[in-house]
């Protein structure tokens, strides 16, 4: 019940902001601009869907941005024209991401280290690996078929596909239900026979894999594998998820909310750019919205 209410509130907020923007800057409502917005949120959206899994279990993943960079670099290495069929760089990027996520998951479950710390460590380490693998320079000269992934509406399609599959998984698969249970009350989940460690491992691995996919799409979009890409992406992704109604303590929320949250952030970013608001103020506005969303989330928990 509560999640529907918050989703509804989100839709209303989205419509209001959209309406206000279109009055002040009519160009907002044009098809090319709206397409831009959706395209610009696609990569963050993919990351946000991925981290939704982790947040649902009550954990967190701060390494998203670095994994994006690392998988982008790895994918780029395999994506030079004529080297490999395009499936190879894509698979390589996603697998690298999954590996990072898997490591995160293992240390969290077996090592019993707090997710914040583990993923913070991965954030630093993965960035280092990206720099080593790339020699500190962007990996350019990417083939046409790879670059296609980042062009036009393809990132949007990837985002939508990822969202749909995740939505189905979380609502209809037993594994998805278990995810919610682990986040909602880990002790009760264990006492009900759920393999809590396995569920968490799955969540972190999938989050890493999706971050890897995001890295692949980003590399395709900017046509290079950049070891410095993605800085701060994890915060944007988590913000989108929290704004969308998934609770930071786990057990509540879902992909639908994440999509709305990502949209809201994209619209606000786009609006601020259209209005030519200086970067400083943009940062302040974003910060206020994130804190506001988390505050609302906490109030929901209490009631």
């Amino acid at each position: 019940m509560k999640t529907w209410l918050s989703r509804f509130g989100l839709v209303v907020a989205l419509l209001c902001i959209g309406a206000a923007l279109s009055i002040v800057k009519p160009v907002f409502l044009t098809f090319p601009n709206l397409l831009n917005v959706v395209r610009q949120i696609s990569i963050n959206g993919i990351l946000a869907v991925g981290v939704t899994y982790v947040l649902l279990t009550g954990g967190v993943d701060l390494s998203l941005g670095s994994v994006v960079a690392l998988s982008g670099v790895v994918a780029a290495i395999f994506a030079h024209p004529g080297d490999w069929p395009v499936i190879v760089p894509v698979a390589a990027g996603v697998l690298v991401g999954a590996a990072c996520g898997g490591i995160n998951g293992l240390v969290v479950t077996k090592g019993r280290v707090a997710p914040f710390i583990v993923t913070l460590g991965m954030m630093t380490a993965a960035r280092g690996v990206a720099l080593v693998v790339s020699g500190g320079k962007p990996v350019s000269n990417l083939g046409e078929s790879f670059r296609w992934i980042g062009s036009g509406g393809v990132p949007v399609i990837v985002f939508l596909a990822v969202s749909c599959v995740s939505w189905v998984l979380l609502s209809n698969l037993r594994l998805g239900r278990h995810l919610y249970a682990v986040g909602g009350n880990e002790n009760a989940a264990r006492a009900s026979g759920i393999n809590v460690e396995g569920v968490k491992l799955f969540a972190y691995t999938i989050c890493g894999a999706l971050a890897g996919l995001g890295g692949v799409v980003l590399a395709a979009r900017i046509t290079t594998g950049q070891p410095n890409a993605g800085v701060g992406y994890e915060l944007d992704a988590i913000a989108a998820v929290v704004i969308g109604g998934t609770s930071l303590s786990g057990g509540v929320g879902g992909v639908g909310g994440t999509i709305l949250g990502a949209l809201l952030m994209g619209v606000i970013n786009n609006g601020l750019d259209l209005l030519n608001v200086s970067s400083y103020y943009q940062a302040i506005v974003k910060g206020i919205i994130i804190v506001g969303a988390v505050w609302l989330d906490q109030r929901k928990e209490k009631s």
Partner: protein
Amino acid sequence: MKRLLAFILALALSGCAQRKSDEGRVLIGVSLLNLSNEFIVMLHRAMETRAAELGVKLIVNDAQRSADRQVQQVETFIAQRVDAIILNPCEVEASSPAVEKAIAAGIPIINVNSETRAAPTAFVGSRDEESARLAMEYIARRLDGRGNVVMMHGFMGQAAQIKRDRGAKDTLAKFPGLKLIAEQSAEWDRAKAMSLMENWIQSLGAKINAVFAQNDEMAMGALLALEQAGLKDKVIVVGVDAISDALQAVKAGRLDATVFQDARGQGQGAVDLAVKIIRKEPFETQVYIPFQLVTRENADKYLN
């Protein structure tokens, strides 16, 4: 407690060991702004090559964009009594204590590529204002002195951003027909620049005649956005740095121009200057390595 003592002992010993092996060789401490920046990587490489040629040993540290860390690194160099320090400053103000400490300790310190408020023993670099001036003059030439320009800034507050901004605006003032209709920071980042350009295309559309991006990463991002919107042939894009991606793009006729910052020249120059000072030979306190405009005609020259 025991562990602490052991650690301190190890540190002291390693410091000693280092000194022993370098007895007789000139030792220069180098603190670089950020080794994940391609330009600085080239700077570093040039310094190492030159140092090897001259038989000089370098200790190289990466300050990872933190002025704090840079000051600490310089303090360590001072404690190690290096013969000279080459500093690639993070920030004009916040990296100044490093310079002051070195001078107070009697160790020559040379700034390379960027300036600090405090005056070093010597400076090797390029005038960032000049890079922007070259870029803007090129734009003015191409537009015949009339048109609308948008500018993408780097991280607000960094020395390079401040200088390139000033250079650009001073040059613009000389061409009354050129108007700056929008400026925003894309934080030196290709992806952010791409998004920014896409949004500008929406809000400003056909009004844009030229884009000046304060570095090539952002120029590439803007370029991609324009190409995807099919507007590239109507807009001139110029960057700064001449990274390999940009050079390829200029040669291919996609990017209109970039400005070559001679990393090799600066790196070599810094080491040469340091050695001169150590050998107590006469030296110039300010060595300026000129920027060079790179267009399709001369792109080949820079492509190796």
